[in-house]
């Protein structure tokens, strides 16, 4: 989750998000350079006392300021496409989870071996225990084994939702009648928070997502316990 007044990205919890962070640094540096140059030119144009009414054209500078942006765009596009294809690599998942969006909660189904399914509602503010995070905590978390490739199939039961967890670098729209697939692998154990990212009605801001990555034996204990409860 973000700390208060955080402006930048959260730390990555998956390799794809690490790549996205580096790509963002690279592209933002280019953006800052171009913006600084343009701002300097604007200020220089405004404060200059020089005038030349007879400038008509200049082939040399026109060539430069056509070629240079094209080169910059290529320098941005190459890493971007690399990450795009990286995200789609076949990764042979160990686990498949279905995340279904409802108004206004998520439900998770682990149906690889047994039939495990549960709903995940936000904990209302008045029911929080001291120290819990307002509008982010849920009664049941989506628990996964750490450092195992996981496939998520995202869909919805009623209207559009979107399953998003920023530190994993995932956002996938939940469309009724459609299965959207995404995959990830967590590089460290921890609890990762996200929020519904497609307007879906009155409580769109109140259906968060919590992913908990734990060691495999803890995951096995948890899933046995959840099966007993249901």
């Amino acid at each position, binding site marked *: 989750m973000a700390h208060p007044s955080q402006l930048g990205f959260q730390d990555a919890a998956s390799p794809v998000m690490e790549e996205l962070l580096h790509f963002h640094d690279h592209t933002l540096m280019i953006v800052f350079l171009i913006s600084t140059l343009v701002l300097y030119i604007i200020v220089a144009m405004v404060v200059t006392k020089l005038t030349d009414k007879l400038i008509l054209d200049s082939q040399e500078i026109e060539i430069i300021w056509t070629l240079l942006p094209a080169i910059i765009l290529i320098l941005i596009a190459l890493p971007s496409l690399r990450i795009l294809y990286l995200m789609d690599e076949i990764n042979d998942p160990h686990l498949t989870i279905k995340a279904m969006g409802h108004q206004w909660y998520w439900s998770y189904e682990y149906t690889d071996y047994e039939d495990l399914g549960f709903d995940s509602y936000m904990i209302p503010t008045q029911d929080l225990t001291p120290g819990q995070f307002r509008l982010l905590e849920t009664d049941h978390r989506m628990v996964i084994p750490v450092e195992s490739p996981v496939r998520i199939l995202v869909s919805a039961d009623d209207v559009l939702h979107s399953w998003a967890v920023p530190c994993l670098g995932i956002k996938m729209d939940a469309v009724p009648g459609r299965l959207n697939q995404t995959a990830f692998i967590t590089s460290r154990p*921890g*609890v990762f928070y996200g929020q519904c990212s497609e307007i879906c009605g009155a409580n769109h801001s109140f259906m968060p997502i919590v992913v908990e990555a734990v060691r495999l034996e803890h995951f096995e204990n948890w899933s046995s316990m959840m099966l007993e409860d249901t």
Partner: protein
Amino acid sequence: MLRLTSSRLGSLLAGRPTAALTFSIKGRAASQQSHEVSEPVDMSRPMYYDRVDMPLPDKPYKDVLSEAEQKLKQKEKGPWSQLTNEEKVALYRLKFCQSYSEMRAPSAEWKTVLGGMLFFIGFTGLVVWWQRIYVYPPSPRTLDGDWKAMQLQRMLDMRINPVEGLSAKWDYDKGQWK
């Protein structure tokens, strides 16, 4: 519509060419004693302008010269070393309305703009302050000091953002910020 007396209108129409021009176009307006907010100017004829990037206007500033001024112009046709400084300045002022330093002289407009800006920003601040007292609902209890402290401790215990973010800046051995 502003109404001018005919005497004021007469003083506006100073030069002969302007008089000829405006009587032809605005003869009706003059007789009705009405006045346009921006008078139409015939841009196809030579005109005088004060422009920093165009130093030689189409025509001199003063076309209609008094007797003394006409004598000065005659004197100008001779050697210029015989002109006094005042005469040179007078000749300049016949030709041009504003000098370069007058054209470039800054105005005090920025003070009005800045003052107006600050006034409205201050007024907005007052509105926001009033809203905080009379309009806003009470803050959720999760923004109380002790809750935020417990929340921060929980975030550190959960190792939120341990690479470069929050937990990376906490020294777990010493129990203090790095």
